């Protein structure tokens, strides 16, 4: 069927902020959807609260609303824009839930809006636990024994029927939020009570636990005619029991014979046909490893993280095809974009292996539990493509950037055999290394299989890598051995370390013997057809397949690797924009990245895509083949910056700010010198290596002091120390990983924090705008609420900021972008940090100022001058709209992570509130970040002594507004003395008025809790914060944030009354 001509104006719903379980994959899907719709000549209306995304870019849609993703707001947009249809299945669970609610309420019908793609009934049958189960029963597809319950008692009685352990899965939540495996009745009560609370419809599924079965997924596409294909299947190395987002996944399946493969494929097709899915869909199966018994675990009637992975793994653009299906096309009418010859109605075949490994945030949350289960904890993932599974694993491991590039984890060498054997029982982020260490100690693959239930096939692959380590250690490095090590994916560095031959010699030996990387094409068809996709991966087979595309100058843009806290989707935004800008200027663009979730790794973006780890060796292989004119590193976050020196040593011209100047911003002494040259102040401080040095410096400066390692992003390892014991704790923690650079110890200044992104061409600068943080210094800029334009900064200070920006940018010879953090303390402007690279705020500031920052920066990098580009110099005109960026956290997903904010970044994503009024903007930002703004209700206040005075005015305001104040004893006394009525809650852990009870019963609307010092997890404050996170009760750990909430409370408008803003018109 050709396109449905009745469709003219489509509303696309995005997925909102990046949180665990819903990340960049939906920017990738959403961007593809918008591009396709526009290509078809349709008018596209977009709503997404996430300003860091590419999909919310001006050229992506006709109207763009960076507004809260709530039913109320989407209704307003529909009423204003009057779209004729809505595309719900590309914006993750968030988008789908909103569309479903609008449909269920009859709103879509009333407004004559058609739901594109799968029908509401189909979505309901897939999403609603009971409906799904009934449907599966009706088509004879086996589900796991389970029952939907609405209360804890029913959960318990059903578990008695089917026996423990059971899995608890809340309905309609993301990434399995609030789920878990219960082995005892007590655990079952805990988990199900929490799950019921989190579920939108207050239901959880209690399910027989089938841990240990194989977990297999199929990505399926179906069109309105009923044509069905499976794009690929995937097998989890971790058996059932670990969330698929936390599993190491391979594609295609490795241990299934054709019979099992087809049995599950047929089942998947039967299921999506029964659900009448129109678009992309994901079916997860559990397969008994000892029989043909299987069970359908779950169906996602939308594109998902897995579909992004499948798209990148096969080259088949699922989101693009799903979009075309939604507007009426059938699979046999859609061309295969890769071959350009065949149709989308076929199934990709691979002639390589794909390995996905999750990226977890545990280095950010030292107190957090690293155990993996049904609750996803990873913030991102890496993917590797290789002809062998061994090489796939090795490539993926080094893509994680965890300072580990083999299966050797040094800390395990000190474990006894028994200790390391016991580690096998814990399923966590280190399982792969634990398995390897046990193999090294002589355990057999069978023994490890028995302990872990991981398939022996995978264990034997790990064992191949372990055996090779031994060979490298004990044998002379023969050519054959070297070749084998390369085929297995070892880097020269690892080979050098194991064989005790210098890195240079390994490299020389390799090159002399022609053992060099050859790049193969990802072509969807295992070379059956001629393909033109410029999508490559490295192998050590011969025959390089990359082609020369004429004589344009080539520029390499390095991507930013997996999504992690501190380095997120923003950097992908920058890389992609830089590529677009370079293309416009006539350059041939080459992107290197390893993140399957992102837009940058769509083969349509750059002229060539290399899906490779971002290490010097892997990048050098590409450089050797491509011989580019230059490379741009300033847009790919710390990942790309780290490779600058290596690139220079390869003889690659660094375009933009030079390495030595970047160094001057990071190296303490050089930076001080640069600031001195400009006459700019910075907080006093010094560099240290040891605890003793640090104590000395701290005492000389006077506590509190800020300690941090250099060359990190997201404030990794950064903390405020109040005394010697904390210095000891923090410095020791930093020194757990070997520091190439000294640690910085600075005087901590409690002042107003401001931030500037600027572009410099060596002569002039252009500042899109100055951003003001609502929280005072001490909270990482990524975790602060940021306001553009500034609201409380004097003309004089603004001038000074502009002046300083220009001085330091020129002093550091910045060509391109830079980001500067300022503090205003006691009337004086200080610079605390200069980052001569793109920053987290670039997409946000670009959108709200309407200034294409990356495009301008790229042009400047290529040699153009700001004066000639047409946006002027100095500070750009001030917007009449106020845009407030609010961080979003995923604390509820990470058990035992401390939620208190400090100098180390903890947020996973961000949202934006845009309005002409400050208080409206802040209301929007809070709503968008998922915080309900109570007009009245109950507040729990428990603050440390030094914050008590400051908290008082806020408490008074809340009290006068009619809020009931609950407080712990110390806080309560002060409040009472100041005429505020207060209910005292004991810091005890039981009783009706105990804090846990109040929180769990949902009696508290929000909490103000400022943390006492230290990072220990046994304090009461920590427990309160965890309880709050798990019960989804907002908990503000800074008085400044709480004050911002009060501004929102004061705003008189309801969500319905807030005006929605199309940012293309700002």
């Amino acid at each position: 069927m050709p396109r449905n001509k009745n469709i003219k104006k489509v509303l696309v719903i995005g997925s909102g902020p990046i949180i665990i379980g819903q990340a960049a994959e939906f920017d990738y899907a959403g961007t593809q959807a918008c591009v396709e719709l526009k290509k078809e000549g349709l008018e596209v209306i977009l709503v997404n609260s996430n300003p860091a995304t590419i999909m919310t870019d001006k050229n992506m849609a006709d109207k763009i609303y960076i507004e809260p993703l709530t039913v109320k707001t989407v209704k307003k947009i529909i009423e204003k824009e009057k779209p004729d249809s809505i595309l719900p299945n590309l914006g993750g669970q968030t988008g789908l839930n909103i569309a479903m609610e609008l449909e269920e309420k009859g709103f879509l019908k009333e407004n004559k809006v058609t739901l594109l793609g799968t029908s509401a009934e189909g979505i309901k049958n897939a999403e609603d636990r009971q409906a799904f189960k009934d449907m599966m029963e009706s088509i004879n597809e086996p589900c796991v024994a389970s029952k939907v319950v609405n209360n804890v008692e029913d959960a318990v009685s059903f578990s008695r029927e089917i026996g423990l352990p059971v899995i608890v899965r809340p309905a309609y939540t993301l990434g399995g939020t609030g789920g878990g495996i219960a082995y005892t009745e007590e655990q079952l009560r805990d988990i199900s009570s929490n799950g019921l609370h989190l579920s939108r419809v207050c239901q959880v599924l209690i399910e027989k636990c089938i841990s240990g079965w194989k977990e297999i997924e199929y990505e399926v596409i179906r069109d309105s005619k009923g044509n069905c294909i499976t794009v690929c299947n995937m097998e989890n190395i971790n058996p059932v029991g670990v969330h698929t987002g936390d599993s190491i996944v391979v594609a295609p399946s490795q241990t299934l014979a054709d019979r099992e493969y087809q049995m599950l494929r047929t089942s998947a097709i039967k299921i999506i046909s029964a659900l009448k899915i129109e678009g992309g869909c994901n079916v997860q199966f559990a397969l008994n490893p000892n029989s043909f018994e299987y069970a359908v675990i779950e169906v996602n009637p939308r594109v998902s993280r897995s579909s992004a992975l499948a798209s990148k793994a096969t080259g088949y653009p699922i989101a693009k095809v799903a979009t075309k299906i939604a507007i009426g096309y059938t699979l046999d009418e859609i061309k295969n974009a890769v071959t350009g010859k065949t149709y989308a109605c076929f199934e990709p075949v691979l002639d390589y292996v794909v390995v996905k490994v999750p990226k977890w945030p545990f280095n950010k949350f030292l107190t957090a539990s690293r155990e993996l289960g049904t609750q996803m904890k990873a913030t991102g993932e890496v993917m590797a493509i290789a002809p062998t599974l061994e090489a796939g694993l090795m490539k993926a491991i080094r893509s994680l950037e965890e300072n580990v590039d083999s299966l050797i984890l040094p800390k395990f060498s000190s474990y006894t055999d028994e200790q390391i054997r016991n580690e096998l029982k814990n399923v966590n982020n280190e399982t792969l290394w634990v398995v390897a260490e046990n193999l090294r100690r002589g355990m057999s693959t069978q023994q490890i299989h028995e302990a872990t239930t991981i398939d022996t096939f995978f264990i034997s692959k790990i064992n191949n890598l372990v055996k090779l380590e031994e060979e490298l250690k004990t044998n002379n490095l023969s050519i054959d051995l070297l070749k084998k090590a390369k085929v297995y994916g070892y880097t020269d560095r690892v080979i050098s370390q194991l064989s005790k031959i210098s890195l240079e010699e390994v490299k020389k030996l390799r090159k002399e013997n022609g053992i060099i990387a050859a790049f193969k094409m990802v072509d969807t068809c295992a070379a059956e057809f001629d393909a033109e996709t410029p999508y490559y991966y490295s192998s050590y087979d011969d025959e390089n397949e990359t082609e020369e595309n004429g004589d344009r100058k080539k520029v390499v843009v390095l991507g930013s690797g997996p999504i992690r806290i501190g380095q997120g989707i923003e950097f992908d935004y920058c890389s992609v924009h830089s590529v677009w800008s370079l293309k416009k200027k006539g350059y041939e663009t080459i992107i290197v990245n390893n993140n399957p979730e992102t837009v940058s790794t769509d083969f349509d973006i750059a002229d060539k895509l290399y899906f490779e780890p971002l290490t010097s060796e892997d990048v050098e292989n590409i450089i050797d083949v491509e011989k580019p004119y230059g490379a741009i590193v300033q847009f790919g976050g710390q990942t790309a910056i780290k490779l600058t020196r290596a690139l220079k040593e390869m003889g690659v011209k660094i375009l933009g700010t030079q390495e030595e100047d970047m160094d001057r911003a990071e190296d303490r002494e050089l930076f001080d010198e640069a600031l001195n040259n400009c006459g700019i102040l910075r907080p006093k401080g010094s560099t240290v290596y040891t605890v003793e040095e640090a104590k000395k410096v701290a005492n000389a400066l006077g506590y509190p002091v800020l300690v941090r390692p250099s060359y990190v992003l997201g404030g990794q390892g950064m903390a405020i120390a109040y005394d010697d014991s904390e210095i000891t704790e923090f410095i020791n923690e930093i020194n757990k990983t070997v520091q190439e650079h000294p640690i910085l110890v600075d005087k901590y200044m409690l002042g107003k924090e401001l931030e500037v992104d600027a572009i410099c061409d060596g002569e002039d600068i252009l500042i899109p705008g100055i951003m003001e943080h609502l929280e005072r210094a001490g909270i990482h800029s990524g975790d602060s609420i940021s306001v553009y334009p500034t609201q409380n900064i004097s003309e004089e200070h603004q001038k000074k900021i502009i002046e300083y920006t220009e001085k330091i940018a020129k002093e550091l010879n910045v060509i391109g972008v830079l980001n500067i953090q300022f503090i205003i303390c006691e009337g004086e402007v200080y610079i605390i940090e200069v980052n001569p690279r793109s920053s987290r705020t670039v997409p946000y500031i670009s959108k709200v100022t309407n200034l294409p920052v990356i495009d301008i920066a790229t042009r400047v990098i290529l040699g153009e001058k700001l004066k000639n580009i047409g946006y002027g110099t100095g500070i750009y005109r001030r917007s009449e709209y106020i845009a407030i960026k609010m961080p979003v956290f995923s604390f509820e997903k990470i058990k035992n992570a401390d939620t208190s904010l400090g100098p180390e970044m903890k947020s996973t994503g961000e949202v934006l509130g845009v309005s002409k009024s400050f208080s409206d903007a802040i209301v929007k930002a809070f709503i968008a970040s998922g915080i309900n703004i109570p007009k009245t209700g109950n507040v729990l206040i428990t603050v440390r002594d030094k914050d008590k005075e400051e908290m008082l005015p806020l408490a008074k305001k809340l009290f006068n507004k009619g809020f009931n104040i609950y407080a712990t004893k110390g806080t309560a006394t002060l409040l009472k003395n100041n005429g505020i009525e207060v209910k005292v809650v004991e810091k005890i852990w039981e009783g009706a008025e105990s804090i846990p009870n109040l929180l769990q019963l949902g009696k508290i609307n929000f909490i103000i809790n400022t943390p006492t010092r230290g990072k220990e997890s046994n304090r009461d404050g920590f427990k309160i914060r965890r309880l709050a996170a798990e019960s989804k009760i907002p908990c503000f750990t800074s008085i400044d944030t709480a004050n911002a909430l009060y501004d929102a409370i004061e705003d008189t408008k309801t969500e319905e009354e807030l005006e929605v803003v199309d940012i293309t018109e700002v």
Partner: protein
Amino acid sequence: MKGYLVLENGEIFEGERIGYEKDTCLEVVFNTSMAGYLKVFTDPSYSSQGVVMTYPLIGNYGVIPEDMESKKVWVSAVFIHELAETASNFRKVKDLEEYLIENEVPGLKNVNTRKLTKILRNNGTMRGKITSSIENKAEIIKEIKEYKPTNLVGMVSTKRSYVTGEGDIKVSLLDFGCKENIIRELLKRNCTVYVYPQDTPKDKILECNPDGIVLSNGPGDPEDCKIGIETVKELYNGNIPILGICLGHQLMGLATGAKTAKLKYGHRGPNHPVKDLKTDKVYITSQNHGYYIKEDSIDSKKAEISHINLNDGTVEGLRYKDKDIFTVQFHPEACPGPEDTSYIFDEFLSLISTI
């Protein structure tokens, strides 16, 4: 031990020998199935061919007797990228290499299978030789060029007729190199299957009073099957429902005056989209053929095209006019590959039951 594949154009691929140690000439083809190597290796249609598996990891689940398409390995040699050292599957009885040795089938591993596939794609299917020595290259190439496999169907077809199943519907199957799963699919549908050697005369085939006749798949150039074509002509003139699969499809075409030709590099894999023109639906099919029926040679008075290949537009199925006969080029019995077109057997059975 090193081994080589020498192609008729002089190109040489190096690998490590696996399986039985034997040098032999063969036709080199590639198959894109990611799972199902056993079913490929035991498919009689691959007789005289050396198969390049494009998926790089082969042998992962070892050898599973019930997953075979015939009693033995029919491929002349296997060319693979990597042979799994550890095979894992609950039904596994042995490792693949052991099985290749038992079947006296040689092979090479560590072959750059992608490069080889691209050569076959660009140059078309080629003959070649698997050998341990390339010292006398000119001699080898001469030998390759002289290599012409003959009487493949005679070689792979059953030598004696036999009966299997206890169903109510009687089906005669003319075995040109039949895959087991065609028989299994019929047995599943309440059939008794009478299997006959490829050169069985018409009268003998009809002796059991069959309700329907199946013309099986098989190896090689359909035009070489002179006897088969004659027998099929006679069957065409009868009035018993006939289903032709792959070679059976081609033979029915030749028997009714159509022409066949060789595809440049064949269709061999699990992912070929085929459109059923009657329902306008597309199915993903399993395929294994090097020849096809030329569309312009089909007498439109006798047959109409029922299925086409969505990739290259070639004929994938024919429905014969005024006859209860239809034939398909793809493999509705799958194995390896998708089971989407098993409805072909249902249609055949319903055709039988309506008569």
